[in-house]
């Protein structure tokens, strides 16, 4: 990495600057900072978690003060969601495996575990779809129905995003050097995100299905 020359700091040059270049440039001056991208992601996840917290608070308040109308249906089967919960929890473990393999230098193994994780995520989504199609209520039937779909749907969106990230990481790790033991950021970020999404699901499962 070359240091910044006046030419690279023109308008076009500034556009080409990435965070990474700036960092390593700083490093030449002996004051480079650690890679803070994971920290940034964690902060973002706190923010994202607050969105869910808002939804959960709304749901709990609805439950506390808005009784279900007499004729409304809001019944949830437990079996499928419980299987789904197990799938997600296992997928957290498999993702962790993938990370360990990568750090151990075993790119092949890492990719395998990644695929397993992705498959588990996809299975979760499929299960969710099955549940959606078999529920006795629709999105606008009543307050609880709407809240149920909003919460699970928003979470499902996160899982979908997670699966896409997994596939991207899998793809990138096939290219030399992009994701490796020396440069594991992509995988670590996806993993952190995945654990977060799983954690949210556990809370959601407890609130929606068990409470």
């Amino acid at each position, binding site marked *: 990495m070359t240091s*910044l020359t*006046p030419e690279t*700091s*023109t*308008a076009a*040059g*500034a*556009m080409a*600057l*990435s*965070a990474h270049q*700036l960092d390593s*440039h*700083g490093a030449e*001056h002996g*004051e480079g*900072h*650690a890679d*803070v*991208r994971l*920290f*940034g992601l964690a*902060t*973002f996840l*706190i*923010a*994202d*978690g*607050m*969105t*869910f*917290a*808002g*939804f959960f*608070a*709304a749901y709990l*308040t*609805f439950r506390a*003060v*808005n009784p279900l*109308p007499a004729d*409304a249906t809001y019944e949830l089967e437990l079996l499928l969601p419980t299987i789904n919960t197990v799938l997600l929890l296992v997928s957290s473990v498999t993702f962790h495996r993938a990370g360990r393999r990568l750090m151990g230098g075993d790119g092949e193994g890492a990719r395998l575990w990644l695929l397993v994780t992705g498959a588990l995520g996809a299975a979760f989504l499929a299960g969710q779809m099955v549940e959606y199609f078999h529920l006795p209520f629709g*999105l*606008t039937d*009543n*307050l609880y129905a*709407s*809240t149920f779909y*909003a919460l699970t749907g*928003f979470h499902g969106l996160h899982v979908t995003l997670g699966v896409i990230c997994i596939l991207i990481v899998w793809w990138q790790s096939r290219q030399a050097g992009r994701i490796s033991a020396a440069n594991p950021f992509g995988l670590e970020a996806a993993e952190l995100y995945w654990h977060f999404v799983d954690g949210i699901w556990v809370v959601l499962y407890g609130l929606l299905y068990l409470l």
Partner: protein
Amino acid sequence: MTVASPTDFEAGSLQPEGWLRYFSFSLDHKVIGLQYLVTGFVFYLIGGALAGVIRTELASPISDFVSRDVYNQILTLHGTVMIFLWIVPVVNGAFGNYLIPFYVGARDMAFPRLNAVAFWLIPPAGILLIGSYFISGGAAQSGWTAYPPLSLTTPALGQVLWILSVLLLGGSSIFGGINFIATILKLRRPGLKLMHLPMYCWAMLGTSLLVVLSTPVLAGTLILLSFDIVAHTGFFNPSLGGNVVVYQHLFWFYSHPAVYIMVLPAFGLVSEILPVHARKPLFGYTTMVYSIMGIVVLGLIVWAHHMFTSGTPPWMRLFFTIATSFIAVPTGIKFFNWLATLWGGRIALNSAMLFSCAFIVNFVFGGITGIALAQVPFDIHVHDTYFVVGHFHYIVYGGTVFVIFSALYHWYPKFTGRLLNEDLGRLHFLLTFLGFNLCFAPQHWLGLNGMPRRVAEYDPAFTTWNQVSSVGALLMAISTLPLLINVILSAYRGQPAGDNPWRALTPEWLTSSPPPVENWVGEAPLVTHPYGYGTPEGQLDLAAASGSELWQASQR
């Protein structure tokens, strides 16, 4: 450390050339900061023009200037533009981006690309918002609070565009917040401890925590609201079994912290400006830090004081009254510290100082009416009246906007290398201060005596004071002229400022003005005493000691 002299930079011209970079996806924190500043200012003019429409309409008790539904669109746009496109982007985005990397001794923000994205979310959001006025059905007309069920029954397209726009702006502010937290906590140059940081860093840290914790809740709420509008769900629709008060809780869970998002950075800026022009250390640095954190914590648990008449249960009213009142304690600490900073100083009464001191006056007034509002029985009478309008304009305008002006006079030489004209500055101050008080002080009386807010027509008994208020607004509009003239002319003809016209000690002044792309040639200076002004008591003859002497002394 050494202060680089301007000649060091002349040769290579590290500055990217041309004004075009201000329209580009620049990653330089200083360019982004100025982009925020100028964009925000454009929106201030738009929001002010909308306020002009409001005050023109209210100059007479009948609805004559604009139709009633247009009036509601105008006031909704005014509130939204002023909060989300002027105050928040400028006190956070503009000054935060420009100053924070200097203060932590970094060459840029932690995530420059995210930073640029955050800025570039703003113009489209603004265009969406303003543009919604011109579509059929018009802009949203349910106020900046968008309470359902009203917001579910007004023309849907305008309301949905409003939601989209606020979501974009919320996203921008979350990205900004993440960037500030990471930069302040993780990018400090080696040797710089948290307790060495200039106060503005602490203010931005506190603000960003609030942004990250509360803005997502608003985003989620608005998504649910848009479902209610578009997909006919019933979260907040009582006729479908929903609960409108839940919306209010969620909305204010964000929007009360939002008021501290608007004012904490301003507190930080004042803490930078006062010591420089009073030539004294910032009084009570440590308590200042704790009071910021106190405001952050308290700010998160007082939201329901906006809902005292919404049928909230008694225990809730009691709790929120007490919690809200206690915000006076940490806020008071800051104000007394500022007064003590001025006490015994060598105060230069320039425009920056005048605006900062007027800020103290206005904010204390607005804060006291705020404490009154926090008392449930008092609020029952004045909720949703012009008393509240008076309260918050004293704070958002008399507080934050005054500080923005003050900061402009203080940092303009940093941005451009030239000073703003002092005479025009004082004229600007005088007109603004007079106009502002004329405009908003009478509103307290109006509210107490029975004028509700958000009305296009009112009891003719209130005509006189409304007209006074409108004249005040006119003065404020006029007062922007000297400012605009000053800012534009001084960019070309202003008196050259040198690198450090105020003989300040904070790190942004320890480089050239305007600074080079990478902020410093060579290493970033380590400033552990950003407020090391002043003479130890009894050591030097006060009248004789020269500031620059002291300044050098404090550089070790």
